[in-house]
């Protein structure tokens, strides 16, 4: 299908890799034993549980009646390994664990191994399960270990830090979904800025004093040692928490100045360093907590840090050891704290830990769930793990509910709804009910259907709106729940904003809708009845992604949402489109701010980074004068801003610039790094021949080698 015109644009024909030839696909089909399957609601492995249950009952009955001699159990065991080997053991008694129906835990490590053998054989996935296991699981579990290099200093237990006169009364915090704090790459406490910044392969946390615009200290995390800050830090009084990932890669090559690693898979380990920053110039590391897996997300409620990671099984560097149980703080977790579901068939753990950052000695909690979560929503009391799956009959969102009481974490329920969730804003909990908005693709009619579900505390569906758009074939782009109401932006051609009334949990209804050109990707509540939408502009015909649109909606009348004002930035692009934390909202000054990169499509020159500060008082959107940061060089990284008192601070990897909020004048700056720092010296001698270079740059653990 190639003509001159096409060749002009897509002149390149990628070469198909060996692994995608017809033969190798057929080989994979054969190897995994895939056959076309009929779509039935339940998966077959429940049969094994029933079979195992019967077997146990039978043994029990025979033992009671004395009909069993010593030989009996051995024969039973042999059968299990030769016939339908291996069957997962019957899950632990439900009553004993106080677990709801359908949720199981493991009694011993042997059971975990059995489970993985079973999964491994069923899916033809390769796992190592070694016979001896170095760490005594029950002894090691839940022990609070301190990292060797940590310095222990006296800890003030109750209040961490205090507010002095040097701190501004008002500043913009992280734009979180609800009262739970979320980690971000920039934090402020009213005087100091805490910034995650990168110079090539080294990531830093830098502390800048805005009083005299001075860089006070920096904490380096070098990728060469396998460390990489995952972009989440927290500030709580005099405590700084830095979350970072330690990869399992082995460094042995430098290639073109970049460090490369032999890849053997694995999600590595996620660690959190807790620092005492009462002296900002000399942060002192108090202790470190760690857990298996790569980071999914984190939250902080009060002084408790909740870290959620995803951990998949891989052999270690030598390929002969295998940890089928995740570790927390250097010890494998108690098998009784591993949750699995009978209908699930996954080999990936989601590991959740709770750490009190104010006290190293305080009790910590952990829970591992065998589910492959890709996202989470956290309310004040519960954490909901979510993943999208496609099971042949359609798209599904699988939700696991975990209750959080201080450091006590408990799995409460699991359930699923039709359709895929969009992001964390697709979920909301109110008075024990979880509300979810999803989009599902109907494979019969080739249509997108947007639905709302209201789930009870056991994640059973109470009520739903099956098709919010009423047959419009639209996709959910943004959701925001506010109390009894939900606002949903869907998109196919224009941007309808739907207002849903959820006050009656048994009968949610679509109240009003508003059609607008373009669409919003993020909705932000400004005040009672007023909503701000950030997204793309357009006209009736199509959306126009080169136009950044900020719109103000009046939603006080549910039946009749109105647009109050809109603000268009041509050729603009903002990070808020995919990360709501980039937005700042400063109610004290009636302003919102977003980082905007303006591309010059028709000119030459670099895109310009500026911070759009928009005043929304009197229900009108007006731009507060220019806050240009600097022209964009690719190496300067993510661009953000934050307000403290009367000033705005814009930040990237190279500099912090102070602007006066009232007139946009640039006041001072603090240089974090110069162009020189980004230059890489290429040492040709270190460059080995390409043949030994079976390497992958350590940026992603996305693919699994066969």
């Amino acid at each position, binding site marked *: 299908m*190639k003509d001159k015109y*096409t060749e002009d*644009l*897509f*002149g*390149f*024909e*990628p070469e*198909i*890799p060996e*692994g*995608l*030839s*017809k*033969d190798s*696909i*057929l080989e*994979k*089909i054969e190897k*995994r034993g*895939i*056959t*076309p*399957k*009929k*779509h039935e609601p339940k998966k077959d492995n429940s049969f094994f549980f029933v079979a195992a249950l019967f077997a146990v009952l039978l043994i029990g009955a025979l033992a009671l009646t004395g009909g069993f001699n010593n030989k009996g159990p051995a024969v039973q065991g042999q059968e299990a390994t030769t016939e339908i080997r291996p069957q997962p053991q019957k899950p632990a008694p439900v009553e004993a664990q106080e677990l709801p129906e359908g949720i199981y835990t493991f009694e011993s490590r042997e059971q975990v191994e059995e489970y993985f053998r079973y999964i491994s054989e069923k899916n033809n996935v390769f796992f190592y399960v070694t016979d001896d296991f170095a760490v005594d699981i029950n002894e090691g579990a839940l022990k609070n270990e301190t990292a060797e290099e940590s310095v222990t200093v006296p800890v003030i237990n109750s209040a961490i830090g205090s507010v002095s006169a040097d701190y501004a009364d008002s500043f913009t915090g992280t734009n979180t979904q609800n009262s739970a704090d979320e980690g971000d790459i920039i934090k402020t406490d009213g005087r100091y800025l805490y910034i995650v910044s990168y110079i090539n392969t080294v990531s830093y946390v830098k502390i800048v004093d805005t009083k005299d615009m001075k860089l006070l200290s920096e904490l380096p995390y070098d990728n060469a040692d396998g460390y990489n800050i995952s972009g989440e830090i927290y500030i709580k009084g005099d405590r700084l928490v830095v979350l970072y990932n330690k990869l399992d890669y082995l460094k042995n090559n430098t290639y*073109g100045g*970049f460090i490369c690693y032999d890849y053997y898979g694995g999600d590595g380990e996620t660690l959190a360093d807790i620092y005492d920053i009462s002296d900002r110039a000399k942060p002192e590391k108090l202790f470190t907590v760690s857990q298996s897996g790569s980071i999914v997300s984190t939250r902080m409620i009060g002084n408790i840090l909740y870290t959620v990671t995803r951990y998949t099984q891989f052999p270690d560097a030598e390929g002969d050891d295998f940890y089928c149980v995740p570790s927390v703080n250097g010890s494998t977790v108690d098998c009784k704290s591993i949750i699995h579901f009978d209908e699930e068939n996954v080999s990936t753990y989601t590991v959740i830990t709770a750490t009190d950052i104010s006290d190293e000695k305080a009790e910590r909690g952990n829970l591992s769930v065998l589910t492959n979560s*890709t996202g989470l929503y956290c309310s004040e009391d519960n954490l909901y793990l979510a993943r*999208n799956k*496609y099971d*042949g009959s359609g798209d599904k969102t699988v939700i696991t509910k975990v209750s959080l009481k201080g450091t006590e974490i408990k799995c409460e329920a699991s359930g699923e709804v039709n359709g*895929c969730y969009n992001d964390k804003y697709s979920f909301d909990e109110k008075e024990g009910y979880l509300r979810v908005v999803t989009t599902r*693709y109907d*494979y*019969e009619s*080739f*249509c*997108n259907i947007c639905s709302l579900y209201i789930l009870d505390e056991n994640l059973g569906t109470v009520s739903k709106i099956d098709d919010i758009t009423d047959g419009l*074939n639209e*996709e959910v782009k943004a959701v925001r729940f506010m109390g009894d109401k939900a606002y949903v932006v869907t998109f*196919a051609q224009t941007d309808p904003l739907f207002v849903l009334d959820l006050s009656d949990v048994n009968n949610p209804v679509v109240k009003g809708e508003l059609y607008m050109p373009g669409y919003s990707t993020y909705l932000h509540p400004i005040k009672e009845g007023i909503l701000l939408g950030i997204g*793309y502009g357009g006209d009736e*015909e*199509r*959306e126009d*992604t*080169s136009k950044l649109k900020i719109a103000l909606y009046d939603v006080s009348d549910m039946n009749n949402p109105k647009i109050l004002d809109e603000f268009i930035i041509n050729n603009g692009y903002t990070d808020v489109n*995919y990360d709501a934390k980039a937005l700042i909202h400063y109610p004290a000054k009636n302003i919102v701010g977003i980082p905007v990169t303006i*591309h010059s*499509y*028709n000119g*030459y020159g670099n895109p310009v980074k500026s911070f759009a500060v928009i005043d929304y008082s009197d229900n009108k959107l007006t731009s507060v004068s220019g806050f240009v940061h600097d022209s964009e060089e*690719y190496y300067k990284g993510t661009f953000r801003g934050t307000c403290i008192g009367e000033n705005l601070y814009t930040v990237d990897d190279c500099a912090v610039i102070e602007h006066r909020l009232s007139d946009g004048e640039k006041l001072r700056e603090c240089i974090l790094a110069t162009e020189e720092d980004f230059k890489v010296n290429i040492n040709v001698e270190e460059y080995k021949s390409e043949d030994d270079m079976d390497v*992958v*740059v350590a*940026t*992603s653990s*996305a*693919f699994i080698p066969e």
Partner: protein
Amino acid sequence: MSSIFIENLVLRSQLGDAQAFGELYEMYSEDMYRFAWYYTGNKYLAEEAVSEAALSAFENILSLKKPSSFKTWLFKILYNECKKMQKSKIISASFTDYSEENSKEYITDDADEVIALRNALAKLSDEEREILILHYSCGYSSKEISSITGIRATTLRSKISRATEKLRKLLTM
């Protein structure tokens, strides 16, 4: 390829004939890989997406009610597979790498023009990128793209021409 022949192969695959499915797969494998390659911008991810989509298609082939719509159904699965990766942010991570020299090895072994095209594509919106790849690289008609992406066929034509114009501007910048 006559449509009856394809339908025959689909029916045979539905009966569990892996060889027949292999034939079908071979017919579209190039298009699939090209789509995934442009979509993910990463040869490893593309390979994984195509192979996962192929296996999942065979496993779920009984859910295909109309054998004549096999092609769009297959691409819908591939499209979903790619989208899933995007949702888990893997792709956005790989996109940011393009500007850096080290990414060449990662994307392809090929020339600078390819990188330029990839960079230009990365500046488009997801939707623009998808429809351009489907239209130009895989040669799909508006109607076919409509059934894969769910965008209305009537608006697709103007979308395609607009996105093309934008891509050209970016490439000649």
